[in-house]
């Protein structure tokens, strides 16, 4: 494993190999490398302990297209992992496997070191995995409160919907994300793109998420709202929540993420601590699949990049 040795700082410690260069037998993976040691020398604390989430060798194909090809990523409590890649790289598809939207063709998912099956979104939610989808996934014909609480409505003592309580709570969350938001009685189809995005974010953070997946959460937001989401991510991180952040905005990712994972054509190009790489190096990873010194290459790295 030459690529590991290249990084002298990590030489002595077992390293979490994020993108395996060749398929690894399941037996090899059964015993987990002592995770406490992994982050030993890194200045950011969050990656200590068992990973919240570990996805190993995930593959999924649509028809002939290998949307995700033996991708492995992980996430530690209180850590923000940025997921980068060109359009169609497979970022959304990979996290949709985690959120239960897609059934993987191969690979394993571990939560807190235990292998679990995620066959549908309910399984993922039961593990505390909340997702803000790129498409927002809102029911357009009902209002913000109904969307926020969809699938876990507040009930009155009689077991009927407590719409007033739900609206009241929604007002509080939305005020925090988007203070100018007033249109609580309208179906979300009547809202602006940014307002809709705020509703989707509110839904993901309102329930006790342990793992938050944010697929381009600020794509439609204005500068003020984007800043608010940034602050929110930092707060959630401080609370020990693990966050996958997909974004095309390198500045955002560098600002918020502890680590970043770059994908290209469904494969992981490499993983790096944010502070070990430069913008240009990351751009090289995204565009050319070139893995720089500071990063651990994955199966998607071009040969000469190693």
């Amino acid at each position, binding site marked *: 494993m030459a690529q590991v040795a290249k990084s002298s700082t990590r030489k002595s410690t077992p390293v979490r190999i994020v993108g395996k260069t060749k398929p690894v037998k399941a037996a090899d993976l059964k015993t987990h490398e002592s995770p406490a040691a992994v982050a030993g020398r890194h200045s950011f604390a969050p990656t200590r302990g068992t990973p919240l989430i570990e996805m190993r060798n995930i593959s999924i194909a649509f028809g002939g297209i290998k949307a995700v090809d033996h991708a492995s990523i992980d996430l530690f409590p209180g850590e923000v992992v940025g997921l980068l890649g060109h359009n169609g790289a497979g970022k959304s598809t990979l996290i949709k496997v985690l959120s239960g939207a897609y059934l993987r063709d191969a690979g394993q998912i571990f939560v807190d070191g235990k292998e679990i099956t995620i066959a549908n979104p309910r399984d993922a939610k039961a593990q505390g995995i909340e997702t803000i989808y790129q498409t927002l996934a809102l029911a357009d014909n009902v209002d913000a409160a109904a969307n926020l609480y969809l699938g876990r409505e507040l009930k009155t003592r009689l077991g009927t919907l407590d719409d007033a309580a739900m609206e009241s709570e929604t007002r509080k969350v939305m*005020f925090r994300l988007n203070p100018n938001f007033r249109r609580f009685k309208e179906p979300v189809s009547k809202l602006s793109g940014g307002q809709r995005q705020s509703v989707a974010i509110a839904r993901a953070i309102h329930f006790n998420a342990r793992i938050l997946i944010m697929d381009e959460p600020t794509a439609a937001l204005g500068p003020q709202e984007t800043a608010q989401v940034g602050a929110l991510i930092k707060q959630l991180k401080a609370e020990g929540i693990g966050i996958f952040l997909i974004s095309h905005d390198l500045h955002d990712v560098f600002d918020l993420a502890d680590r970043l994972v770059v994908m290209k054509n469904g494969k992981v190009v490499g993983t790096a601590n944010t502070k070990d790489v430069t913008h240009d190096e990351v751009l090289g990873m995204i565009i050319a699949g070139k893995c720089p010194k500071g990063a651990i290459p994955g199966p998607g790295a071009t040969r000469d990049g190693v």
Partner: protein
Amino acid sequence: MPRIKFSEATLSTPSPASQTPALEHESVVTKFFRATEIDARMLGMIAALLLVWAIFDVWSGIISHDDGLLGGAFLTPRNLWTLLVQTSSIAVMSTGMVLLIVMRQIDLSVGSMLSLIAVGTAVLQVYQLAPALGVGHPAIWVLGVAACLALGTLIGAFNGFLVAYAKIPAFIVTLGGLIAYSGIAFLLAKGETVAPMDQTFEVFGGGIQASWLGPFWSWILAAAACCTIAYAVVNGRRQRIRFNFPLRPVWAEAFLIAIGSFAVLGTTWVMNSYPWPQGVMEDYAKTHNLVIPAGVENRDGSAICMAGEQVVHCLNGLMHYTGFSLPALIAIGVCLGMTFIATRTSFGRYVYATGGNPEAAELAGINTKWLTVKVFALMGFLVGVSSIISSARLNAATNALGQTNELYVIAATVIGGTSLAGGVGTIYGAMIGALVMQSIVSGMSLLNLPAASQNMVVGGVLVLAVYLDQQYRRRLK
């Protein structure tokens, strides 16, 4: 509960009151609708219904004068009472169709399903239970009713299973059902009419004295309904106060209670003005050893003991009024129950959310497949209810009993404002839609217009209603 803690500073004033900024110069009409929060579309539908009624009354009055409100035969207690009974079966099924269409599904098989259920359970009643238990045994009607409901739920769930899990489009599954179920019904009935039904079972049809509530209990029921309306309004206001939401002005709340009570009491008054039909009255006199006094028959031939234009109380107890009939009460009850399910339960919420965006509903953790099965099963259950009403009303079951019902049910649903694109529709809309359609059908037969032209008009109204509804929605945007 919520994981994000809000610092007091950020929470300070979400000022909910500013949500509906009152415009400085709004018209009285806009102000009225804003204050009462009445759905303008519902009002439009009711207006259309009243217009249809007025046209038929005037038209029939021109042909021959009668004692309807506008001088015709349509707006008479007798006709309106019958209209309710005739509408009930279609209305019950259309409430289920609302949820299906809202969920982007459809059930074309309800008519055939109705025939199948009716024939199947009639065979059970007439050929199995009656000989086994003896005619008139109380278990017969209980088992008959239970069998209708169970069979309906089962067939509906079967449809739903094929749609949700075998992933066959609902249109195809239920088109198959439309053809197949009536075939099974024909086989079961061997092409014959299965009759007569159990005597008690007949109560559900509204054709016999036992299925009429009578004026006293009708008034009691109406009073209870008025109290419920008032309670609902007051309770709603209390909820808004609890969460510091904007309130309706007091006059608007009072108006809602008044208009609701007026509708309830008015309907009850009409129902209570319909006297027993002559045949029933004669039977009643015979069994009670009463002498029918010589009087002049009422113009519509239903009331006896009339002299000229005056009601003559010739003998105590010889002027009886029907009040609400059981099928009408069932339809009203189903309407209320289904409205509750659609708007107050998470099941209903899921149906609407799934119709709005099926993928989003699934991603939100809703088991949309199982939900689909449940909605189809509910549809089947309601078809079971309607099959009870229809076969009891006819006091027989044939394989043609529910023929073309699916068209009327879907038409009623769509006329009532349910969008075939999914996600939009109301139960009360479908009820009004069913009333509009039945009004046209029975109004035209009142005018002795041939059935063919009835179909023409109903079809035209269906298309026109959808056109108007779309225009209305476009203007809202």
